């Protein structure tokens, strides 16, 4: 028996123990490396999803170590805050503008995601009813009709295709979110533009009449 083979067989036994295939003996357990024991026990517990024996991961040591190596921040940015405010007061325009909008900053990313999400979900909801009512108008199919129910392990390509399709749907939803946001922003200027255009046309018309006179 070569060394490698021996190693492999030992691993096999270890795994078997925790899958409950082999009766545990003190001898065998003694032969196991401690670290490996903990790992395999965890894997076995997780796979059996045992409720009574809760999975226990002892991370206190790592956390303690991490905390120790963590650089300490002195709270100098708190001390800087009054300076910033003082600066802002000097610059009146800026200070007032910021104060109205400041509290929203941390929510920015969330807000973008939410707006995109909302459009997509609403769209999907309306989709089903709309396509039932109106067959002449195709609706965007954002959920796969088939796929998730196909038998596992028959084809390895199927999941890959599904993943790609999922990615594409996300891309499309993202694009739709961006389009809706852009439309909202641009249409804020629409009325002002319309008025400007009318003024321009009136001016042109009056110029023409002046020329005729």
């Amino acid at each position: 028996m070569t060394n490698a083979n021996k190693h492999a067989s030992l691993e096999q036994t270890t795994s078997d123990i925790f899958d409950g295939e082999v009766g545990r003996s003190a001898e065998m357990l003694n032969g196991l490396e401690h670290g490996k024991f903990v790992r395999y026990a965890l894997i076995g517990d997780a796979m059996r999803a045992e409720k009574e024996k809760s999975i226990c991961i002892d991370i206190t040591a790592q956390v303690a170590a991490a905390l120790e190596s963590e650089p300490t921040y002195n709270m100098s940015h708190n001390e800087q805050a009054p300076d910033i405010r003082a600066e802002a007061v000097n610059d009146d325009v800026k200070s007032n503008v910021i104060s109205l909008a400041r509290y929203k900053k941390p929510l920015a990313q969330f807000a973008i995601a939410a707006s995109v999400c909302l459009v997509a979900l609403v769209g999907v909801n309306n989709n089903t009813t709309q396509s039932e009512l109106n067959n002449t108008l195709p609706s965007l199919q954002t959920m796969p009709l088939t796929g998730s129910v196909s038998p596992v392990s028959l084809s390895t390509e199927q999941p890959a295709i599904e993943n790609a399709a999922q990615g594409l749907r996300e891309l499309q939803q993202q694009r739709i979110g961006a389009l809706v946001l852009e439309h909202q922003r641009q249409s804020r200027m629409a009325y002002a533009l319309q008025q400007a255009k009318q003024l321009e046309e009136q001016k042109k018309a009056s110029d023409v009449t002046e020329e005729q006179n």
Partner: protein
Amino acid sequence: MKKLFIAILCFATSWAQAQEVVSAKQLLTNLAEAVHSRNFDASYVVVKGKAMEPYRWLHGKKDDTEVEFLSLLNGAGLEMVRVGNQVTYFEPQSEPYAIDTDSIAGPIPEVLFKDISILESHYDFVLGGKGRIAGRAAQLVRIESKDENKYNYWLWVDVESSLLLKAAFVNQTGEMLEQLQLTHLSITEEPVAQLLEIAGRDFPKALPKVTTQAAKDAKDNWRIEWLPKGFELLKSDRHKLDLNNELADYYLFSDGLVDVSVFVQRPLPGKRPSGALTSGATTVYVHNSGRFDVSVVGNIPAMTAKSIAESVTRPL
């Protein structure tokens, strides 16, 4: 004698119709006047399908300057402040910015605050019944599209104050797609204190005015062959979208009441069918025409958006 009677009858009905049009228009004119002259504190909700957005709307006059505040109360929020002829938008995603204009572009179409006669060539103003909205006596005024390619807009105007109590986008079968409903309205002699406080703040400088001529560059990139009657090009350019940094040729159209955006973009990979998404009255139609994607966004029926999107071609 009989002929005379018929003639009188004809005259009477046509006179009555003319009278009706005048008064429906008069109500809209009164509304535009009222939202600029009264001090009020109002709350309303916008209902789009299952989604609901609550807003607070304040308006007042400080000396001779109008001050207006509109705030979306849910989520990360959105605040719009108008002082005189400048509107500043405070959005959660970006730096505040200001536009030189004399009305806030919120959920209520701006044309209702202004001269509605520009709508006359493509919409009819019709008087509807009376009702009770937000605890007040209300008169229904319908802005009806002259063709089937656009939605109708119905408004309920407060009989006493001429302010808006309810509004809705209604499709051709009479179904309400998106509703705006006031839940509270108080009209006061003096503007509310909060408004005076807001008016005292300073705001960013308005963005440079975009004239129709300055933004001409993308106009000839694509030909949009069909639009519903009354829509005019207000703006066209090529720019990157804020959210996903994608490049798009952009066209903004308006008929005075609703705005429509047309985007022409590089196609996403893969074969995707064309189709529509709707949220309230807003339609997003994405058309995959092979070598480019056309997307149409606006408060228009899905069939109209589809026709616009499919009419886009490369110029020869």
